[in-house]
């Protein structure tokens, strides 16, 4: 007799306490959206759970930091969990690094449909479904001392029960494949990722709302469907209200500033037509050979274009905000410049020596500090390290190139 099919939602890394990062000059009309985006997206996930009539929801870590989220986060979760409880949907919440179980205030009782378990404590296996005929078993995946994944408890061998592993953190894919679970629901990574599909489906659902430039693309939760034959089918639910995006603009050598402006405007239109209901935070990546590198870096071209693009925000209901313009070629310097018998050449050679690990190391923490400095400022400036990083050396090279080139 086949087991009845069922569905559940796999979500993690809400970080409800964490705001959008990297937006320093957002317009006031976008401010509320930026602040509310994590909550709006989370609410959409819970709404989807109700609409999709799921059996339960797996929340796998980093849902919210109680100390930083404030009352809003707590109230939001209690409210949403209560609504889910009214629809008979259970929540199984595995804590992560920022939402340990002990941090949850004891006075705030979660609704009875919420089941919390901790990564640090051994948790008994949990059977899901009617007691006489459970449909699935949740197995807690933890790392042992050697960093290998360990399953707490024994997977069910019955064909009627699906073994679902839940874990937070980084795990070895091969070891998980041997664990005997049909579906390994993992949290702790912000970008969605499926590590394996056979024999086990090993999946990170990622955060539900990207927060910075490193979290581009669609985000949401994963709807998992267990069929009668215990095969696993996953569907992505995209819920992010604000999307970080990097749009590539291909240039050629003949493209001038005006043409670049036109290309960017065209890209803007393309994005707007692609998903007009969403707010986009776009970083424009200029690729291909171009002579605009210096203008983009020092000539104010990038600033002017960004200003121009931002001025179109919220016009004609197009909510596309330009975060910045980057050029893949703007970081390169012609090799001939290194060979010049000029100050520039000397400068670039000195940089190259540092990049190759030669020359006297530069100590940014002592001699080069402007005097006097407050301790706080000194500490801040020395936080990144004593010597400049390679990328900082490259930026210095570009800066010196711009200053000493003389054009």
């Amino acid at each position, binding site marked *: 007799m086949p087991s009845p099919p069922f569905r559940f939602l796999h979500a993690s890394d809400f970080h409800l306490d964490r705001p959008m990062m990297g937006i320093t000059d957002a317009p006031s009309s976008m401010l509320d959206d930026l602040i509310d985006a994590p909550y709006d997206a989370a609410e959409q996930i819970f709404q989807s759970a109700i609409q999709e009539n799921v059996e339960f929801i797996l929340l796998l870590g980093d849902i919210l930091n109680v100390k930083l989220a404030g009352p809003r986060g707590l109230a939001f979760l209690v409210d949403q969990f209560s609504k889910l409880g009214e629809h008979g949907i259970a929540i199984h919440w595995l804590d992560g690094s920022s939402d340990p179980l002990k941090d949850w205030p004891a006075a705030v009782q979660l609704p009875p449909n919420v089941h919390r378990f901790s990564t640090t404590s051994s948790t008994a296996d949990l059977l899901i479904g009617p007691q006489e005929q459970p449909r699935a078993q949740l197995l807690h995946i933890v790392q042992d001392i050697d960093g290998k994944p360990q399953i707490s408890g024994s997977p069910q061998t019955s064909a009627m029960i699906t073994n679902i592993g839940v874990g937070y953190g980084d795990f070895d894919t091969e070891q998980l494949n041997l664990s005997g679970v049909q579906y390994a629901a993992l949290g702790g990574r912000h970008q969605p990722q499926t590590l394996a599909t056979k024999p086990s489906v090993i999946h990170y659902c990622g955060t539900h709302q990207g927060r910075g430039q490193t979290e581009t693309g669609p985000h949401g939760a994963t709807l998992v469907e267990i069929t009668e034959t215990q095969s696993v089918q996953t569907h992505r639910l995209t819920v992010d209200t604000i999307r970080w995006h990097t749009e590539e603009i291909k240039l050629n050598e003949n493209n001038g500033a005006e043409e670049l402006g036109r290309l960017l405007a065209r890209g803007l239109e393309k994005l707007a037509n692609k998903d007009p209901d969403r707010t986009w935070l776009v970083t424009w990546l200029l690729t291909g050979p171009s002579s605009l590198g210096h203008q983009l870096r020092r000539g104010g071209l990038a600033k002017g274009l960004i200003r121009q693009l931002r001025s179109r925000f919220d016009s004609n209901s197009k909510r596309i905000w330009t975060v910045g313009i980057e050029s893949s070629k703007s970081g390169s310097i012609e090799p001939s410049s290194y060979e010049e018998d000029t100050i520039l050449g000397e400068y670039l050679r000195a940089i190259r020596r540092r990049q190759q690990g030669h020359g006297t190391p530069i100590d940014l923490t002592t001699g080069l500090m402007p005097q006097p400095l407050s301790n706080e400022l000194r500490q801040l400036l020395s936080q990144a390290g004593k010597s400049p990083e390679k990328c900082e050396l490259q*930026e210095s090279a570009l800066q010196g190139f711009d200053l000493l080139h003389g054009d």
Partner: protein
Amino acid sequence: MTDQRAFSSEKSVLPIKEGLHVRITKVEIDGFGVWSNLILPDLPDPLTVVYGPNEAGKTTLMQFIRTVLYGFSTERRRRYLPPVHGGNGGGQLNAAGSSGEFSIVRRSDGKATQGDVRILAADGSAQDSDLLNSLYSQIDESTYNNVFAVGLHELQELASINDTEAGQYLYDLTGGLDRVSLIEVLRELKAAQNRLTGDEHRAGQLLDLMDERNRLDNEVRQLANQVNQWVRLWAERTALEQQLTEQQDELNHLQLEIRVAELAVNLRDRWTRRRKLDQELSAMGNVPSLPEGIVERLNSLNERIDQRRKQRAQMKLTYYKLRDEFRSFPINRVLWGQQSRVQALAEQQDWLSALTAQIQRLESEVTDSDRVLVSHQQLSGLGNATMPFASGDLSPITLKSLRGPARDLLDATRSLDQAKREYQSERDEKNRTQQQLTKQLNHHKTTNLTEALGEARQQASQIRRRIQIEERLDQLTRSLRDLEEEMESPANARLLPIRTLALLGVSTSFFGMWLLAGLFRGWLNVSDLIGSAMLWIGGLGLIGTIAYKFWLEHSLRFYHDENQEHLDCLDREAENLRVEQRDLDCLLPSEGGPWVSRLKTAEKEVAELERLVPLESTLETASQRSESAQTHTSRVANDFQETRTRWATALLAIGLPETTTPDQLDQLSAQYESMLTLKREADIKRDELQQRRRELETLQTRLQKLANETGLPYNDDDPMNLLRQITSALESESHSMRRRTEIREKAKQLCKEHQQCLHQSDDLNLKRETLLSEAGVSNEQALMQLVERRDQIRQLKKEREKIAGEIESLISGQCCEDDIRREFEKAEKGSADMNQPGQTIEQRLKILQNQRQKCEDQLKQSFERRGQLAEQIKTSAADRKLAKARFQLAAVEEQLAVASRRWRVLTTSYSILQEVCRIYEAQHQPATLRAASQYLERLTSGRYRRVWTRLGEEVLYVDDADGKVLAAESLSRGTREQIFLSLRLALVDSYALRGVVLPLILDDVLVNFDTHRARAAAEVLQEFADAGHQVLVFTCHEHVMRIFQSLSVDVRQLPDHNDPADVALGWQVMDPLPTQIPTVHVAKSSKDVVEKVAVDAKPDAIPMASAEQPALHVDAYDEPNLYAEHTSDEHEYEWKIDEAETRRDQQPAKPFLRAS
């Protein structure tokens, strides 16, 4: 020596480009300073030392060379021209260049700086001045003076090089190889860094961001703490929910008990009644059965019997009423008998009405006619006056006679109106002019124009006079001052000036001596012409001198007295003027500003007042016209009065009111006929009215007589009303007769009906007796008692059922009857037990209600608290401040990270650029400084190896042998001058490389060098000259000269410029003296040194170093050089001159370089 050779060989191969090549071969000075007609021929090619003591003219020689090349500067002209020993200013230099030999001749023309300059070829032909132009274009005088012809002063002033082209060769580190200035870039990076970190003037972006971050961090921390408060609220709400449930249960229980108690209270009467009914029913027992309807039947019979009885009584009453009514209709038999007469009079009723109507109509018409007549009269303007219709005076003829007076009256009225209008117009014109003038006068604060004008003119005149006095006083004061100064000057004193007196004394003495000499010769009896002449000359001269003295004294006295008199006169005049000025100041107001402005104001006032004079005359004219119009009006008014009197007399004569106007009279004559007709019609109607009134009185008399006869009272004399009263009384009598007949018929019928009703009552009594016997009772009362008892039992049962139903309906759904019963039992038990008094239901209900109220209050408070908590929880949960603050904090941290990273990049760039600077400073020093370094190393015998400059700084640094960097300014004076000499040599080299080869002239630049340094310098200069440069070294120091001599350098001595013969010989070649290196005594002062050197300058008197008088120590690099503190007088003198010249020629002067 190896180094020296290498250096020498390096220098010897210096390629000299084609360009400006000048080598001086001969100097000819026509006249310049102390030199006149000096010829210095055969100037050697490489190095020449020109020796001469102080003031021998070495500097003059160098200045001459500068002058020939660059002209007579103002300072040089002032100092060296005209020549001390006469002759023309100027001279010539013979030179040899790449293009051959030539001469530069420059002579002063006394005015122009350039003077007369010529270039002459070797054959004496004049050449173009291309050579000088080329020199000027490549080397300006400042550069020449600081590089090629250098005195000690120029040598020490390195800063002066900075302003020349030569400065570029020293300090231009990049040499134009790069596109940008490294220093500018460094500065830009530093500025960017400062913008981030701030400087002493302002906080930087990083600090601002950190402050903002700290602020937001604190805000986030504070807001994050709200979660604890929220949790507390949540816990409180949870506890409150539990408490609410308990309170709700308690309240429900109390509600139930209260409901039972309330029901018990509400049901108590019914409950008690039901129980009582039960007791009564049981007490009444059973009742025997009675025929159905017996009571109703009996009641029906009784009712019918009673009804018959009532009918009979009613009939009796009706009969009595009919009788009374019959009697209420009495009969007037007299009137009833005059019935025919009354009817006859009644037939006259219409006529009577018509008669009355006619009288009323006639009265109305008469009244109307009178009113129309009166209205016509009023329309004619006569009012209610009596019209003279009756007298017949008023007729068209008489009215026509009034037309003449009426016309006169109208004419007089028109004339009077015209005169009044004219008078009013003139008076208005006069008032307007008067107001205008008054306004203007008020503006000037006066009422009388003439007086005001006079005062203003007088004031203007006084002010003008005051100003004239003041000017005159100033003039007098100046004259007095000049006169006093003139009188106080020695030239105008009474006494002769000392100089004049001295001259007179000298003259007196002179002539006296002549006189005495003549007398003496006479006394010696030497009579000759000479003696006589001396006598005469002396005598006459003495007399003339004395006479001249007296004349001078007299003239002075006269002139002084005259001046004194003039002074007194001026004083008196000034005093008079001051008195007058004080008088005027008393007369004039003390305030008002300067007198000139006050005069302008006064003149303006006068002009304005004068403009009002025509207005005043206009006012007078208007007044005269107004008075004339007034007189005319009075005359016309008198005429009008007379005419009016005549008119009134004429009116009174025909009976009209005297107030009648001519217009009214015209109307009256027009309506006279119609008014007469109206009068006649009114009289006819009045007669007819009298007739009708008489007829009416006759009829009235008849009616009154009838009324009196029949006894009818009447109050109204109106015949019509009287007739109606009589007729009405007759009709009333007729009605009474008919009514009496009808009442009589009704009484008969009523008697019959009463008899029938009596028979029916008897039948009914019989039936009632039969019914009582059927019920088995003897009388009706027993039957009624029996029936009543039966009905009571029925009633009680019915009542009980009703009460039981009500009780059931009231408690249904709320509680059961047992609860109520228990409640009653509790109450009864409580009230019955006297020992333990319990509570009545009301008391218990009250207690329960109190408890419920308390519970409800608590519940309400709990609900309110729960609402507050819910609101607080909701508000707190909806608060987005924390999220907003965290968002802002993230943005600030992002900015901070970007700024921090930018600072790191900037600092890295700055560090790398500093390294590049060091590389450049080490490897890219200008060629001039490299050459200077080689010279310096030679001059200091390797003690200092390198002279260099930093990027962007015009400061010289020196590396010593140990690689230690020293600023040039920190070195001793001797070492600094070695550095500066090195720089000059290097600059000369540098110019040579650029094709400019000029002789190097050094004027006593080695004066501060000790022997060791001087020797090193001499060797370097010799090698420098050997490398192809012509060098002239001027020195006043013999030891220096000896050093050069020891190096086999051509040494020449300048001639004595005070000895023309010596000058004519030119300079002398000094014999070489290959002796040991001369030493110099340590001197205490520069003067000592100069004197010592001068004394010891003789070849055989060169002092040797000894234990007592050690030679000038050679290790002068660390110790202060005594020479550095003491210079020769000549140098001191030159320094002052040159300083003044430099200051004038090089304005604005830059500050000395620190090294200088």
